[in-house]
């Protein structure tokens, strides 16, 4: 006999120009794993932020165990048994596990006692952690454990998880699911946000579907297909990338023993990375975050110059050139971090279009911005890539993650690059937008360009890559045809077992 844990009644929240949540109601039972589905900007974040006390609703009410529940701040929510694990971790790399956990507590117990508790709780839930290790030395999967254990120490009754698996290897995902199922069997409810519909299908008991801030559907994921759930989210038919014939052309990008020392004390240096990327080819580079992906992107975008001969574009040595020259020659890049790297948060979309497209699109003349041309290009990106925004005058910060990602990818694709390098092109992006982005990248390759996709999302790489390589601890495996590789094989390679590729 299950009891209702949280009842959400008619929550509404408006921001200037947009109704983020409109009369949202649903209930979560004790011990239930409840999925929240929706496209980017459907209102999922706003909803969970209201439950977690980060945002106050304009209207509506919530009941926790039948009692009125309306937290003013996260610490209040935590005290009442609601915990949340964010997509972006809030951990300090230079502090150890226990110190980071202490920071989130209002009345932290003495260190020895806390250490014991961390070990006890983390082992009980199959997430072993050493309280004395530095966060900077932990893998992304382990960092997530810290966040989860931090919540579990507060004995939550409801755990909110935002995109928890987007950064994990398949093996780590399995471990996480075991933990979540164990929690659920102990009566802890889990509100689970993910864009990976297959996961939701295997993990969640119920799902609530949001579209444009409203609850449009509910379902039992086990009885649906990933496709049918995706269609509920977008309220229409999902376009899947079409299969493509791959005939490699001449080599466009040639990396030869590319080495780069990381400037980040917790980063990974690149060691002897070599590959050949041919016209028409989409090469997927898999790997767990922090294994040199950022460094690879910086080396290719030109932000970190290398030896001239290490990088060749159509035979020209470009390793020593900066981003602007590389762009002029046709090598473009889209970094992982949308806000603050690929785009300047407080600048308008117009200025962000100008940011990387100036040279190739001729958006300035003798140093002076051609405003008309710049605005036209920004508008073209917004229209062709279906970027949902009130206008190109809006700041990049005001867009939802998925929409900004579409803008960033669109900005590079529309410049017709010879070679495009993208890092995590669909991270935190909903199914429909992700499908669009993948399709755009494949279309680009079909038109004769070469695309290098760095990603941690194996399904994505399997779906779109012609060839496949793994980056582990700064070293890269020999690229090989993607067809015929199993997810398990790749998962092992991602864990650092690069021989898997050589032997197979």
């Amino acid at each position: 006999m299950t009891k209702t844990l949280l009842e959400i009644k008619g929550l509404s929240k408006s921001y200037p120009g947009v109704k983020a949540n409109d009369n949202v109601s649903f209930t979560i039972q004790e011990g239930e794993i409840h999925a929240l589905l929706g496209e980017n900007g459907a209102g999922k974040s706003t909803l969970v932020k209201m439950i977690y006390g980060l945002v106050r609703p304009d209207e509506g009410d919530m009941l926790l165990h039948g009692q009125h529940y309306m937290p003013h701040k996260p610490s209040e929510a935590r005290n009442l048994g609601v915990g949340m694990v964010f997509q972006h971790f809030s951990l300090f790399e230079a502090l150890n596990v226990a110190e980071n956990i202490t920071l989130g507590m209002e009345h932290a117990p003495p260190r020895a006692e806390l250490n014991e508790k961390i070990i006890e709780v983390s082992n009980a839930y199959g997430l072993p952690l050493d309280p004395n290790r530095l966060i900077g030395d932990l893998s992304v999967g382990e960092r997530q454990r810290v966040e989860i254990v931090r919540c579990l120490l507060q004995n939550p009754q409801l755990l909110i998880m935002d995109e928890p698996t987007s950064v994990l290897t398949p093996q780590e995902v399995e471990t996480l699911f075991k933990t979540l199922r164990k929690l659920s069997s102990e009566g802890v409810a889990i509100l689970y946000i993910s864009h990976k519909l297959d996961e939701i299908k295997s993990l969640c008991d119920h799902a609530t579907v949001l579209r444009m801030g409203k609850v449009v559907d509910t379902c039992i994921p086990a009885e649906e297909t990933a496709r049918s759930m995706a269609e509920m989210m977008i309220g229409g038919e999902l376009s899947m990338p079409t299969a493509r014939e791959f005939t490699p052309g001449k080599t466009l990008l040639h990396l030869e023993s590319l080495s780069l020392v990381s400037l980040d004390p917790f980063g990974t240096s690149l060691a002897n990375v070599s590959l050949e990327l041919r016209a028409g080819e989409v090469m997927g580079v898999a790997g767990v975050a922090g294994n040199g992906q950022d460094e690879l992107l910086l080396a290719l975008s030109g932000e970190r110059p290398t030896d001239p001969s290490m990088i060749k574009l159509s035979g020209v040595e470009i390793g020593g050139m900066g981003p602007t020259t590389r762009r002029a020659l046709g090598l473009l890049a889209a970094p992982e971090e949308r806000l603050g790297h690929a785009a300047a948060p407080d600048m308008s979309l117009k200025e962000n279009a100008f940011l990387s497209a100036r040279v190739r699109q001729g958006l300035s003349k003798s140093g002076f911005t051609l405003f008309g041309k710049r605005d036209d290009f920004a508008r073209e990106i917004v229209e062709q890539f279906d970027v949902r925004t009130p206008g190109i005058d809006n700041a990049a910060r005001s867009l939802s993650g998925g929409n900004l990602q579409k803008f960033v990818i669109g900005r590079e694709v529309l410049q017709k690059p010879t070679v495009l390098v993208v890092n995590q092109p669909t991270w935190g992006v909903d199914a429909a937008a992700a499908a669009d982005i993948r399709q755009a990248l494949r279309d680009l390759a079909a038109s004769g360009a070469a695309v290098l996709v760095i990603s941690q999302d194996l399904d994505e790489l399997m779906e779109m890559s012609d060839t496949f390589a793994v980056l582990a601890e700064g070293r890269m495996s020999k690229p090989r045809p993607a067809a015929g590789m199993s997810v398990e094989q790749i998962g092992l390679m991602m864990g650092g077992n690069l021989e898997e590729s050589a032997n197979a």
Partner: protein
Amino acid sequence: MLRLEPRRQPSKTMRWLTPILAVAITMVMGGVLFAAMGQNPFAAIKIIFLDPFFHETFGPYSRSQLLVKAGPLILIATGLSIGFRAGVWNIGAEGQFVMGAIAGGAVGLALYPADGIWVLPLMTIAGALGGMAWAMIPAFLKIKFNTNEILVSLMLVYVAYNFLAAMVTGPLKSPDGFGFPESRSFTAVDSTSLPMVYEPLGMHAGVLVAIGVVIAAYVMMERHLLGFQIRLTGESPRAARFAGVNPALIVAVTLGISGALAGMAGLFEVTGPAGKLTTNFPVGYGFTAIIVAFLGRLNPIGIVLAGLLMALTYIGGELAQLSLGIPAAAINVFQGMMLFFLLAVDVFVNYRLVWKKEVK
């Protein structure tokens, strides 16, 4: 317990109202300060803000001083604001002001008593180069050794002061000056004297240059690639690098521009209002310009208004010293309050104060 909570959406209107609010609070608190010194606060505030315009005897002179004082402030603040928008904090404009005056002045003295309209432009260029060279020291150290430009540029102010003292008692001392620590008068010779364009408003050639610089700075920041790169660097250094901006170049360019403009302002000061190089010709324009830049929201038009306002407090302050005997230090405090309250009001625009009981 009192706590500051960040506001989700700081109001845009408030951002522009804060300077006005800061000025208002400064008036009130300044009044309190003057009252504590035994003065009638209303009279003091009236003397500082209104008498420079309307006083029967002092009015005409004060009005002519407004642009004389606002000119250098606006010129320096415009340069500083360019750096500030890139996140390059040049605090040593005062030193660059002094070095520009020395460099430009030295050229004039070397040519003395040459005649010709090319003398003053040559001195102006030398002044700009002198200020720029002085600013290049913190720029070089920052680029090469990642030193903090705030500290280096600030400390170089005091080096510049001492260099000035050495110059006016040594190589640049006037041979006809009866041993006083000062240079020859620049205003005594037409070719080295800053021409006055419109006497009743005190509009000398330097003011015209300042207006031209404000317009040029606006165009550069809003329409030119360099301005875009400067703003981008300040907004998001990583995005700037991605866009192909060379951070070292931005440091050098912004410090160079602000140094050159401060140096130029210094030269205009000694060839105009001050008349000659002395140890006390720098009256702190280089520091006050920092307040002007922030009070003007780092925006060229805002800086013009803020420059005029600060000039007013200088002139009104002098009047208050004259007629009420308020010490100069109190006027400095009054000017400092303006920046203090601007920053304080800014905090409240971005945060709200909440009273919270400790949760047990």
